């Protein structure tokens, strides 16, 4: 069996969720790595849209930030940021939004604003950016985050972007018509909302990871689906393409 890191498994499991005909709004960092791995393997025609307004982006190396010239240079075209938000995101043209966050709760609500009270925070994070509207305007949301007790918390100090709110039909009751988070991919497992309660539930465990380890790295009592699969291990091809992408990225940014 090939030797690989948990974060590689996470990126690969996330990439597998994307399809060739998806139109996907991509966050920088882990989401960007997963989306580009999908594009370089099984989904060559996937349409990747970044917040900076680049449409049909095909970066050869991973961008370090949303203003990275690599995005603009490899896109079919770049529209202005307000055009992208108004007519692509809010116009309902985006099928999948791919988000990360600093903290998540069991209903896949996300915090990227503050830890501690808003008026007297312990930690100040960058802020919401466009995430609240992305989380509610895209057809469905995939979330990619490494697990840990400080990031997977029982209760968020600040809900920047809603997931399934307080569970059940609470998201719909706010007047939101899109599906919200349908998958959460971590370095240990794949999670999906329970059809009734909407609590994120482990549906697939990555090879070599135990239920106890998942619980130890989650700040609430973890629910497992009635039938839990084992995530297929990365293939040699997936690992090769992902490692080449990271190596190219490192070389390019070291030279810059």
């Amino acid at each position, binding site marked *: 069996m090939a030797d690989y890191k948990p974060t590689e498994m996470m990126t690969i499991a996330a990439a597998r969720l994307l399809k060739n005909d998806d139109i996907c709004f991509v966050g*920088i960092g882990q989401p960007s790595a997963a989306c580009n791995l999908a594009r370089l393997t099984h989904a060559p025609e996937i349409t990747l849209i970044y*917040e*900076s*307004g680049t449409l049909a982006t095909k970066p050869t190396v991973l961008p*370090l*930030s*949303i*203003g990275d*010239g690599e995005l*603009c240079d490899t896109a079919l075209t*770049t*529209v*202005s*940021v*307000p*055009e992208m*938000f*108004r007519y692509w*995101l*809010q116009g309902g043209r985006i099928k999948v939004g791919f988000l990360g966050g600093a903290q998540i709760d069991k209903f896949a609500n996300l915090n*990227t*604003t503050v830890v501690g009270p*808003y008026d*007297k*925070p312990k930690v*100040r994070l*960058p*802020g*919401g*950016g*466009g*995430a*609240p*509207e992305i*989380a*509610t*305007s895209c057809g469905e949301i995939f979330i990619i985050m490494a697990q840990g007790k400080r990031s997977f918390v029982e209760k968020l100090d*600040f*809900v*920047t*972007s*809603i997931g399934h*709110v307080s569970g059940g039909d609470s*998201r719909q009751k*706010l*007047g*939101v018509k899109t599906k919200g988070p349908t998958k959460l991919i971590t370095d240990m497992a794949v999670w999906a909302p329970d059809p009734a309660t909407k609590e994120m539930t482990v549906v697939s465990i990555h090879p070599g990871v135990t239920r106890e380890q998942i619980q130890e790295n989650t700040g609430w009592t973890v629910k497992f689906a009635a039938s839990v699969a084992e995530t297929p291990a990365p293939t040699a091809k997936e690992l090769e393409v992902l490692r080449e992408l990271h190596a190219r990225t490192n070389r390019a940014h070291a030279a*810059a």
Partner: protein
Amino acid sequence: MPAIARSLDDALSPIKDGCVLAVPRESSGAAMAATRALIRRGIKRLTLIALPTSSLQADLLIGAGCVDTLETSAVSLGEFGAAPRFTAAILKGLIRMKDATCPALHAAFQASEKGVPFIPLRGLIGSDVLKNRPDWKIIDNPFANDDPIVLLPAIKPDVALFHAPLADREGNVWIGRQRELATMAHAAERTIVTVEKLHDGNLLADPALAAGTLPGFYVEQVAVVERGCWPLPLPDRYAWDAEHLKEYVSLAATDEGFAKYLDKYVHEKKAA
């Protein structure tokens, strides 16, 4: 009719203490030479609105004590890390923060450019960003049932300030595809632009250039400042100065280090 200013300081003279100042995100053309000039002048009590995010520009102005209130949707130095002076100011309660979102800020500027007092926006209901904005309201869509929607008040800045590649002697400014710069200029009471260089002839006379040109009647002042975005990028012209930003991050981690940075790069007249 806008004039080409004799100096950068002349061009910036409409930006007074207490002004509501709108600036763009770092990759659309942040007027950094102008920002350093404002800090040298000792500007105070700004309400800074970064459309829709900011990086070094907000961090510098906050660190130098120029900002009372910041309204934006995110502040960070991207790959270089958190914005150290912004973070310190929030933790110490030195500035008033109005967290917004990117679509909300673009929408609120759009309201102002059209002269309407507010604009509806989808997607904020449920977010604590909305809960911390008493000035944003939820109403029932008057044309449907069970359809709550958020209304945002128009944002009308006193001054919009940005950097662009070209201007001509009529004050027309070529902004290319950074269309939000036009929205800022339409929304603001006054617009001040720094540019890389002057274009001979009229930008609006050439149909290819005209499409990316902000007409001069929205522009009050133009100053020519080569590499006016440095150390930030100007789209399609130059990239970040990564070494400089690394130096900034390490210096700005402490109050003393930040003061050293200001001495070295802001107060020194030859600031590049």
